[in-house]
């Protein structure tokens, strides 16, 4: 029995029936992480002591039969951009290399309250800026399916750790595909929830109006379970919906017969890898067999999604990253600093990687006097059109179906020289974030022995349908059960 590869509910049963304790499970997971992770580098920090302490507490709850949740005693990993009090939180940036937050993110608190066990913090593109995890200031994370390939980004570490069985679920963050893309590359299930569904308090912001924390799991059912735990209104995040969280597992298992799938025609034009396209076509046939109605829909402004996404990202990021100035926390470079300006210039010069520098400078450009209307404001207007595209398309169908990425995981170093080409790998995932709608990525087959991801995009706040339809697919296929041999 290989515990790390079980689903949350399978482990939950083992814990409830006392076949295993959380401490045993946690020890096994930590041991596996220490053994295997040096090959893939998914963790920035492994939190042995904290994990064992949380596991011990979970076992206490299980023994007393008190405060037991579906996540009690379950080991998980978390992207290193979510604040953990007393545990360093780096955003994989040199500027936060030794930063230990004084407070917990709301999500961190919710998971701790649910009894989940934090194994460690995972690698990412610096501040989430990247699509391959190669922009980490510390090291590259490798794809467990092929160590010469990227795991995708920016939540590459969280996806790789999940894929390699170094945790039983992980928490990623999706600004423009950062959960879905690596989930697709690494053969795990991952969701970007509706914007405002999960609190961002304590999430180190990249793009405040796009960022969504979302889980990565073995399957859709687990994904629903974790999202139920972390979702909900937060008095500390004014952008969260003040609505009750539905039971996301409720519709799971219900028939999808008669439900409709929209295929956005703009997503099936050119540039898609043949094996990706055939996998997606196969998935569509699977749904047809389940009695779902498939029809073509249009998202006419799709080609503008990428410039809108990147313009707004640059603009908001340039402002969000201003607080890293070397005066209150994090790296501070003050070599012969004659005034505070020197600290700003030197700290940010040494603390930020090239991609971060590029993006915050371009963001300042897009917001600066004389260019605001042409870039920032224009992008916000086209963003309205992108939202309308999704609203209109989704008014006729239950969900949209598309590939997560045009290709499978590419080689490490393959796209690092040309930033624009790297941006293009996000082509199918970025539009949902400016639009705010939820999207679920599921394993959907293989192309040249590398995993293919499929994306289901839903209506605002309709995560339930995504889980229901995603689960139906996973009852028919076993792609999500395939594991890398590592």
């Amino acid at each position: 029995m290989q515990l790390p590869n079980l689903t949350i509910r399978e482990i939950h049963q083992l814990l409830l029936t006392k076949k295993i304790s959380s401490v045993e499970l946690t020890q096994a997971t930590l041991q596996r992480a220490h053994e295997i992770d040096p090959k893939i580098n998914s963790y920035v920090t492994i939190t042995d002591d904290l994990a064992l302490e949380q596991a011990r507490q979970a076992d206490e709850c299980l023994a007393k039969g008190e405060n037991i949740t579906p996540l009690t005693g379950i080991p998980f990993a978390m992207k290193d951009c979510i604040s953990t009090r007393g545990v360093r939180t780096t955003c994989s940036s040199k500027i936060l290399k030794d930063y230990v937050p004084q407070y917990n993110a709301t999500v961190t608190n919710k998971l701790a309250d649910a009894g989940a066990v934090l194994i460690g913090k995972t690698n990412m593109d610096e501040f989430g800026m990247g699509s391959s995890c190669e922009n980490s200031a510390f090291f590259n994370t490798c794809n467990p399916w092929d160590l010469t390939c990227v795991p995708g980004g920016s939540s590459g570490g969280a996806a790789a750790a999940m894929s390699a069985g170094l945790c039983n679920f992980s928490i990623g963050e999706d600004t423009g595909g950062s959960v879905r893309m690596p989930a697709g590359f690494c053969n795990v299930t991952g969701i970007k929830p509706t914007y405002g569904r999960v609190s961002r308090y304590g999430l180190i912001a990249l793009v405040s109006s796009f960022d969504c924390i979302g889980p990565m799991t073995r399957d859709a059912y687990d994904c629903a379970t974790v999202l139920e735990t972390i979702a909900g209104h937060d008095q500390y995040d004014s952008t969260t919906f003040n609505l009750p969280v539905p039971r996301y597992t409720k519709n799971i298992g219900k028939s999808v017969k008669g439900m409709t799938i929209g295929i956005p025609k703009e997503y099936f034009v050119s540039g898609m890898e043949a094996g990706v396209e055939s996998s997606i076509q196969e998935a569509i046939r699977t749904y047809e067999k389940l009695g779902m109605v498939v029809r073509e829909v249009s998202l006419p402004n799709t080609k503008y999604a990428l410039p809108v996404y990147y313009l707004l990202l640059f603009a908001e990021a340039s402002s969000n990253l201003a607080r890293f100035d070397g005066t209150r926390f994090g790296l501070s470079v003050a070599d012969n600093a004659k005034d505070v300006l020197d600290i700003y210039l030197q700290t940010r010069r040494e603390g930020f990687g090239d991609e971060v520098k590029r993006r915050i400078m371009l963001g300042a450009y897009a917001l600066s006097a004389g260019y605001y209307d042409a870039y920032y404001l224009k992008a916000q207007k086209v963003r309205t059109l992108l939202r309308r595209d999704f609203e209109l398309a989704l008014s006729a169908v239950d969900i949209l179906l598309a590939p997560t990425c045009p290709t499978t995981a590419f080689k490490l170093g393959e796209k690092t020289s040309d930033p624009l080409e790297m941006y293009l790998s996000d082509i199918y995932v970025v539009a949902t974030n400016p639009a705010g709608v939820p999207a679920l990525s599921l394993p959907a087959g293989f192309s040249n022995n590398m995993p293919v991801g499929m994306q289901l995009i839903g209506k605002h706040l309709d995560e339930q349908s995504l889980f229901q339809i995603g689960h139906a697919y996973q009852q028919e296929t076993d792609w999500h059960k395939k594991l890398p041999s590592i």
Partner: protein
Amino acid sequence: MTQTIDTNTVKHVATLVRLGITDEEAQKFSGQFSSIIEYFNMLNEVDTENIVPASDIANAENILREDVVKPSMSREEFLRNAPQAEGGYVKVPTILGEE
């Protein structure tokens, strides 16, 4: 509209975001920025007459806090992360333009 972002513009935006960069870096970024901005100019094709910018569309209803005082965090904990502190203050070098 074709526009190149020259090294002076790069240096100007670097100043705006307080980033120390060298001439060589300015040169390198200038080339990259020009092609990225050129790509962004594709948005000019879109007719956005009478379109409300998305930032003005509220997702949620008003979320307001009651005016209630909550306990503050500990000063020691706050200052523990500060590179320099003195007498309970965060300390920084002289600020240019101030007496």
